[in-house]
């Protein structure tokens, strides 16, 4: 009756017989499960299942296992397929995919918002309370701000001491736009002043205390040391006369008493102080620091020591700092004069040889000096 036994292979040994029997049984079960049995055979097999509980159990297990196998395979393939789709999708829309930052933002935006408002509040709160505290000492604050602005200017450079003349002080056709101070360096009409005084000049006039006016032109300029040499350009010029001072080509000592004459206003003004540093603005070794109160218009003036030696040319002062003025050392003026001779444009200058001021007191010195110190008027 058993369909299995009908197909039994006689040639096998007993052990093989039993295992083969089992395998045959599997085959039958599979045929049954796959619906490959003919109707008659199928009916027979089902009848057998109803009586043989062991076989029925085997069939159930087998079915379950085959299903699991198939399902496992299918799902594995499907997963593979989905993974392919996923990577394809990622490749397609790489930039569109939500990046880490957006995710982070979405997740933490509330926290971030709270943190941001707290910090904003504390910042503005602090600012406000500081403002409140500052109110009683408003004056101090104002000075502080002032000082800061000065520091800003300090960065640029020395403040050029140029006196802007706005009012028409002379009945000249046109008032001078700027003025500074200059002094004679040789009796045949050479005058030195600061470069920044005559910068951008169309025409330059010099005038001394006695009221003598000369038209001059700039013949040499040294921007680095802020020096310019002017020459009287009038035909009937007779000369300045003998210069009372000489130029010092060595460095002067710290603490030496120094003085200057200049034209910070229409009249000549005397200023006295001492040499306070052997270097100038921001450690500039080509200049001295001097403690003479200076004003716009003093630029280009002579700086003399007690004995009446010319030791420098006034160039400027430091903004926002009291008593810190600067003068270019005379050594550089001499250097400039030498350079001028080398260019061959002019005859070598005959510098004054004798100092007639050394033995005199200050008022007498000034009396001799003042004819050789000029106001430099710049027209443009």
């Amino acid at each position, binding site marked *: 009756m058993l369909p299995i036994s009908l197909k039994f292979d006689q040639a096998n040994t007993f052990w093989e017989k039993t295992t083969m029997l089992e395998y045959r049984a*599997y085959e039958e079960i599979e045929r049954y499960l796959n619906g490959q049995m003919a109707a008659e055979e199928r009916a027979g097999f089902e009848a057998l299942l109803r009586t043989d509980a062991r076989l029925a159990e085997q069939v159930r297990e087998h079915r*379950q*296992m*085959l299903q*699991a196998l198939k399902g*496992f395979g299918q*799902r594995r393939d499907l997963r593979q397929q*989905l993974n392919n789709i*996923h990577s394809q*999708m990622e490749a397609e829309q790489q930039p569109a995919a939500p990046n880490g930052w957006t995710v982070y933002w979405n997740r933490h935006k509330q926290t971030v918002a709270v943190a941001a408002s707290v910090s904003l509040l504390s910042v503005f709160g602090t600012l406000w309370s500081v403002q409140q505290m500052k109110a009683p000492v408003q004056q101090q604050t104002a000075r502080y701000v002032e000082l800061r602005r000065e520091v800003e200017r300090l960065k640029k450079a020395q403040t050029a001491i140029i006196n802007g003349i706005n009012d028409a002080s002379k009945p000249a056709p046109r008032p001078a736009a700027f003025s500074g101070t200059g002094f004679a360096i040789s009796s045949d009409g050479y005058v030195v002043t600061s470069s920044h005084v005559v910068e951008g000049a169309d025409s330059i006039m010099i005038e001394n205390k006695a009221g003598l006016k000369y038209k001059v032109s700039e013949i040499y300029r040294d921007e680095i040391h802020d020096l310019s040499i002017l020459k009287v350009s009038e035909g009937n010029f007779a000369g300045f006369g003998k210069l009372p001072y000489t130029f010092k080509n060595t460095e002067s000592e710290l603490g030496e008493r120094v003085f200057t004459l200049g034209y910070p206003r229409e009249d000549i003004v005397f200023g006295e102080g001492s040499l306070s540093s052997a270097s100038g603005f921001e450690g500039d070794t080509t200049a001295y620091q001097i403690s003479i109160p200076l004003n716009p218009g003093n630029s280009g003036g002579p700086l003399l020591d007690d004995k009446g030696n010319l030791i420098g040319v006034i160039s400027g002062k430091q903004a926002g700092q009291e008593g810190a003025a600067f003068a270019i050392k005379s050594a550089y003026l001499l250097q400039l004069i030498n350079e001028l001779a080398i260019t061959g444009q002019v005859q070598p200058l005959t510098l004054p040889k004798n100092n007639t001021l050394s033995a005199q007191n200050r008022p007498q010195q000034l009396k001799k000096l003042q004819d050789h110190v000029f106001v430099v008027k710049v027209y443009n």
Partner: protein
Amino acid sequence: MKKSLYETDEAVIEGIRRSDERALAHLYKLYFPMISHFILSNSGTDDEAKDIYQEGVIVFYEKIKDNNLELTCQIKTYLYSVCRRLWLKRLAEKGRYATRLDETDSFVPVEEDTLHHEEQEKQFGVMGDALEQLGEPCRSLIEDYYIRMQNMQDITDKFGYTNTDTAKNQKYKCLQRLKKIFFATYKPEV
């Protein structure tokens, strides 16, 4: 052009029934951003989003294939519901209970579907392990015949058996072993 083919839910379902890979790809790409957003805004990572979404798609896909999907809502809602369910479960396993879910869509009850899916996942996991333990060449033999449905003659040639009978015997021998390993770990919850 291609996309317009699957504009409606019906077209997508029909496409999947026909085993049209493009239908599945279209569906997959269409709703991934939604699920990804949901997972990411509920303390998940990119990888978890991908994982959960694929599970959801598999549930949906297999239900269509088994012809027992009674869709009472949009595919979108169904996928969202399944993924939501799966994600909640995953969160619970991680020991994190979402006190307040950041819902991005409405959802329908899908408890039964996800439970069925999980049961199957478990079973297939055991099967996968069993196949691993089986070793070669048994594993390939079994997979070729029962999963890849190759015919006995090809398998005989491939594995170099003298005839199909030897191959068959070998196959049953392997199946016997697989069965033992499989039922040793897998206890169906009846």
